[in-house]
């Protein structure tokens, strides 16, 4: 147990070091190009770095707090994400009870199931039970206009913001031989690899990006940024293999897999934003937009990562 703590502290110290370097670069850029805050790009970069500090500290405290801390943190993230998603849907006055049920029954129940580690129920609760029962609540209101759209949107919001998010704390319940009690490091590895891939794709894109991948969805994503970010983040994932039960090449493959899912998740979430005509999901995190803007890549990666681990490594 003690070496979990040591490994965790090492990881946290590493993240702190990276952020410190980022803060120093940010401060130098600000002194040189934007002493009075006139360069929007530099200001946004520094906003982002500040927000990263807050996020890194929050998640570190949660990870150090063990299972309680992690479940609680992702419960709060899930709530904030669901609020952002539901705000952008067509849910109308007739769906009020359905929405209340989503926020005050489905969300807490899902995290309670994660908490008691009832795999058999938490993996089907939203896709099966809620999928079938939720439309009943909306149907009882008698409003038929846009019915399918409203129900589909609410169900998908729950899949993305509750089901997917809850699979991050669920990683702690996996029983992997030789890796007992180290579930918290699996989470740290996932979050660090996927988030660094996001950052590195951005950095590579800024430095050498020429060819846009999906200009209509996300104008800032480029082929060069994607390849550079993907490969360098995979290398980092391999370097961090001490956090995982993986061998070196397994860490590489798994890294590639979660990074791809993260990238594709980001594209899908962008498509939704374009459709709804907004730039960000919310306004809660300075420089980043909303919670979903920051979580989008982790959202898609978490359940896949969970099930690959469960299938191949867990007993």
């Amino acid at each position: 147990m003690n070496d979990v703590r040591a490994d965790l502290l090492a990881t946290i110290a590493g993240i702190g070091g990276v952020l410190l370097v980022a803060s120093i670069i940010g401060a130098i850029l600000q002194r040189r190009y934007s002493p009075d805050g006139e360069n929007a790009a530099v200001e946004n970069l520094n906003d982002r770095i500040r927000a990263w500090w807050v996020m890194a500290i929050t998640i570190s405290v949660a990870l150090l707090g063990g299972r309680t801390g992690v479940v609680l943190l992702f419960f709060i993230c899930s709530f904030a994400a669901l609020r952002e998603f539901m705000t952008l849907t067509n849910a109308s006055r007739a769906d009020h009870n359905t929405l209340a049920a989503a926020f005050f029954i489905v969300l807490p129940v899902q995290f309670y199931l994660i908490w008691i580690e009832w795999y058999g129920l938490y993996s089907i609760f939203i896709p099966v039970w809620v999928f079938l029962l939720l439309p009943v609540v909306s149907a009882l209101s008698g409003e038929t206009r846009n019915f399918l759209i409203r129900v589909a949107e609410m169900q998908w919001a729950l899949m993305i913001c509750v089901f997917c998010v809850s699979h991050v704390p669920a990683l702690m319940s996996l029983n992997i031989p030789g890796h007992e009690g180290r579930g918290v490091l699996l989470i740290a590895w996932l979050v660090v690899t996927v988030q660094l891939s996001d950052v590195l794709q951005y950095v590579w894109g800024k430095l050498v990006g020429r060819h846009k991948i999906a200009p209509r969805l996300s104008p800032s994503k480029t082929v060069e940024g994607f390849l550079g970010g993907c490969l360098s983040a995979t290398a980092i994932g391999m370097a961090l293999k001490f956090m995982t039960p993986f061998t070196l090449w397994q860490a590489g493959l798994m890294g590639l897999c979660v990074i791809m899912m993260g990238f594709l998740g980001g594209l899908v979430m962008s498509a939704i934003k374009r459709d709804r005509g907004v730039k960000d999901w919310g306004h809660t995190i300075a420089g980043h937009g909303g919670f979903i803007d920051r979580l989008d890549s982790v959202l898609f990666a978490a359940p896949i990562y969970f099930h690959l681990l469960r299938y191949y490594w867990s007993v």
Partner: protein
Amino acid sequence: MTAWAITTFAHLLTAVQPQWQGFDPAERHQRIYFANHVSHGDFVLIWAVLPKSHRRRTRPVAGADYWRRGGLREFIGSDVFNSLLIERNRDGVEDDPIAQMAAALDEGSSLIIFPEGTRNLTDTELLAFRSGIYRLARSRPGIDVVPVWIDNLNRVLPKGSFIPVPLMCKVIFGAPMHVGKDETKDAFLARARTALLSLKPRQEDAP
């Protein structure tokens, strides 16, 4: 204390975000805020985003028939938010509502009024304005009249429901206006209504 608890709850629930369009909240002017009225929580949301120094001096104008029914409602309406209660059923009531409001302005308070007169429970964006706002603005022409659009709160707590659902809200403040010297009632009401509607965010405007 209770006010702090209620506004904090409003923040947690709706992550309410203020937007200032042609309006500087830091200026310590006395103001008449006029807003669209969709929920009993309207003035709470405006209160929650106003700078702290303004809150204590800003009184919501509310219907006495609703907020004077005793108990928790009366406590929240009168004691916590210091509402100015107006008798909507005017039979046999001596006080002229405009005079009441003007008196509160003369004491240095700012006011929050809902010129639709009642909560808008229809699908239209904004009901017709009652004339009170014109008469009030006319009687105290020096005071800024500020349009305030409350966005999305109607989905948080629709009429007849008791559980608020957490959706994100915005409160958008527009540029202050004044009654023109020779402006007629209808012209001013139309102008105020347009000013308020123009604050409403439109999906296609988003970048």
